[in-house]
């Protein structure tokens, strides 16, 4: 008896669902054009004495290790801006959300910040997957994201400002440095995901153009902990240097193995692009001292601006804390946004986008300038060496800010890489 009843109810529900689907009169893709054409009107409230901004970082989960540091420096920047009168005379009211190390949560929370909290701009994201997940949200709502981490390039959205390095501000300077040091052959080690794979593609094209020999290329799954085989291959290949794009905890296992097999920076240096001040402690200074790294900022940069930044940060969070490149890029991003808004005289997204080109800021890393075309920023590349104090000391500098070129259009040898 119950079965027939429930069957009837089911049928009714199914019919209702089907009817709703058929009677829908939503826009077709071609009618709506590319994503974002039908963006709903912005709900940002600019009438009061406060303006809302959103911070979206992973405060829980595996990425919390890295992203909490970015959150801290963003908070410091907001505090400093409020202490000096805010933006266009309005205090910043921060709405902080947890991305929980999951791209889908990032997309959902970005949607919440834009539509429910009505923030003027969002700052955050770390992994490329979180950025890729948020990108359509910012485009379809026509809102702004400031992304503070170096990444693999090949992207430029009018709704994202990239304040970390793209490949031609980190990977290519690292190769220039190695070439200057007389390195004639390389071994590539990376985690098995998109950043190392793209970086290695660029490295191989560069190597082919400059006559550097690639002795081997190895990838480890994310979170891999046993590097015996990979390091044995590295040792047997006998390259002039190792280019390391490993991610996270894998670096620890790799460098411990490297040292235990008796390999040293003197015989075969390992240049890394994902190890900053924050990670050195976990790897163990002993295991990595003397190895080169490539970034755009180190805590040891000797300028008054950086000294102020480091002092303010340690005063707020404790003397034991270090500052690193992504933290500095996040800190800078808030001031760049302030510059753009003040130049535009408005919090309106279109006005900020129009005003962005040429906005510059005297950042802890040096003067940076926003590129109005691709929304990246011009920054100086620095190669550093890890010292016995656990900090990174500048060895080599590109001398002047490098214009961002996320698609490597100005490098003839890279023409085959991005179509």
């Amino acid at each position: 008896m119950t079965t027939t009843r429930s069957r009837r109810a089911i049928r009714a529900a199914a019919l209702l669902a089907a009817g709703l689907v058929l009677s829908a009169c939503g826009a077709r893709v071609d009618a709506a054009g590319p994503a974002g054409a039908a963006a709903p009107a912005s709900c940002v409230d600019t009438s009061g004495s406060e303006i809302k901004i959103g911070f979206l970082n992973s405060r829980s989960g595996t990425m919390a290790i890295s992203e909490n540091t970015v959150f801290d420096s963003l908070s410091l920047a907001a505090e400093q801006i409020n202490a000096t009168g805010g933006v266009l005379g309005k205090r910043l009211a921060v709405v902080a959300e947890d991305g929980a190390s999951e791209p889908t949560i990032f997309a959902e929370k970005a949607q919440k910040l834009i539509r429910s909290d009505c923030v003027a701009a969002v700052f955050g994201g770390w992994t490329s997957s979180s950025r890729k997940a948020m990108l359509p949200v910012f485009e379809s709502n026509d809102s702004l994201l400031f992304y503070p981490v170096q990444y693999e390039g090949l992207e430029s959205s009018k709704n994202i400002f990239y304040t970390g390095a793209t490949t031609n501000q980190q990977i290519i300077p690292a190769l220039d440095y190695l070439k200057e040091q007389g390195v004639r052959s390389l071994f590539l080690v990376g985690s098995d995901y998109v950043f190392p794979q793209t970086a290695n593609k660029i490295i191989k094209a560069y190597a082919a153009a400059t006559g550097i020999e690639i002795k081997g290329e190895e990838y480890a799954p994310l979170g891999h902990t046993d590097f015996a085989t990979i390091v044995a291959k590295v040792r047997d290949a006998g390259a002039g240097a190792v280019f390391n794009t490993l991610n996270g905890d894998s670096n620890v296992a790799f460098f411990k193995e490297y040292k235990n097999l008796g390999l040293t920076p003197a015989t075969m240096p390992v240049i890394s692009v994902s190890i900053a001040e924050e990670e050195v402690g976990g790897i163990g200074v002993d295991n990595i001292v003397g190895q080169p790294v490539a970034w755009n900022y180190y805590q040891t940069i000797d300028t008054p601006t950086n000294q102020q930044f480091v002092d303010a940060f340690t005063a707020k969070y404790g003397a034991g804390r270090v500052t690193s490149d992504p933290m500095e890029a996040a800190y800078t991003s808030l001031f760049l946004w302030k510059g753009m808004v003040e130049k535009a005289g408005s919090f309106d997204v279109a006005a900020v986008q129009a005003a962005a080109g040429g906005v510059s800021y005297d950042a802890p890393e040096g003067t940076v300038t926003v590129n109005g075309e691709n929304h990246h920023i011009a920054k100086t590349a620095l190669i550093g060496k890890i010292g016995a104090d656990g900090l990174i000391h500048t060895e080599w500098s590109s001398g002047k800010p490098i214009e961002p070129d996320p698609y490597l259009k100005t490098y003839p040898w890279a023409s085959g890489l991005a179509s």
Partner: protein
Amino acid sequence: MNKRWAVPAAFAVAAVLLFAVAPLALSPFRLDQLGRYLCFAIVAVGIGLAWGRGGMLTLGQGVFFGMGAYLMAMHLKLADAGPGGTPDFMALISSDGVPWWWEPFRSEVVTLLAILLLPAAVAAVLGLATFRRRVRGAYFAILSQALAAAFAILLIGNPTGTGGSTGLSGFRGFFGFALSDPANRLVLFFTAAGVLLLLLALARQLMVSRYGELLVACRDAEERVRFLGYDPANVKTVAFVVAAFTAGVAGALFVPIVGIVSPNDVGIVPSIGMLIGVAIGGRTTLFGPALGAIAVAWAGSTLSEQFPSGWTYAQGLLFMLVIAFLPGGLAALAWRRARPAAPAPSAQPVPAPSGGN
């Protein structure tokens, strides 16, 4: 309430809530969020059948969820690229064009058929292979977990085919309809709600049928079922296949609603995460798993907005306390209160010991 009206009435209430109350009461953003929870509820319906009724602890549902999701995502990517076009992410990282195994999914029909059939077919092969060899209990659980791990590694390691760790995202349309249009998003929500109710009805039919009784019998005394002349391997495989089917459908709906699928949604951790709602709601009941999944997803979003690290503790404690002290879930608690005299059968500790000693 009269018992024979209880289930149809529950269906009616659910339909009114989902099709009338939710769209009126919730903002578009909250409705999208609820749509995502409904996807997990759909997975939970299948898990309730396989785990609650069949005693198979499926720790690899992320694999089937991921298959459905990636199949749908591949189609949406190809549709966005236009006839003969190459999806944007692929053009960026490789110049080889579209891999051959993507080509069939340009067709809407092939994609829909694949979503309905492929996870089920894989589950059928895996299920028959393992259950016929009488791999069960903990062995089955650990194998399905290893499967989830291997699947995530494969996805991450093949960026040209699957988008690697960033997954597939940035879809513009859904079978020709623009995803940015709120009217279309409402239809997507209704589709998810309709699918959930349909699959609940299917699960109900299976539970009250002769097959449903056999399944419970296999869970409680597999050898006796064998002695009675049935093949438990077939009985269990059917439940496993239905669970994989629901997970695949849920994955396919998840993609247009959330706008991204990545290996983060398919590995070991999300696979186990899919179980907690089922356990809390009451694994042996019809509505319990779905309601539990919605409640846990909702609690996750809400709690992590307020206390990021608190949610991890809360999740851990929920697993510990509910499973250790309330194996029947909240449904058992409600049942016990309604009839204090006789403990309900569903409140009994569930799987019979089947260790290898």
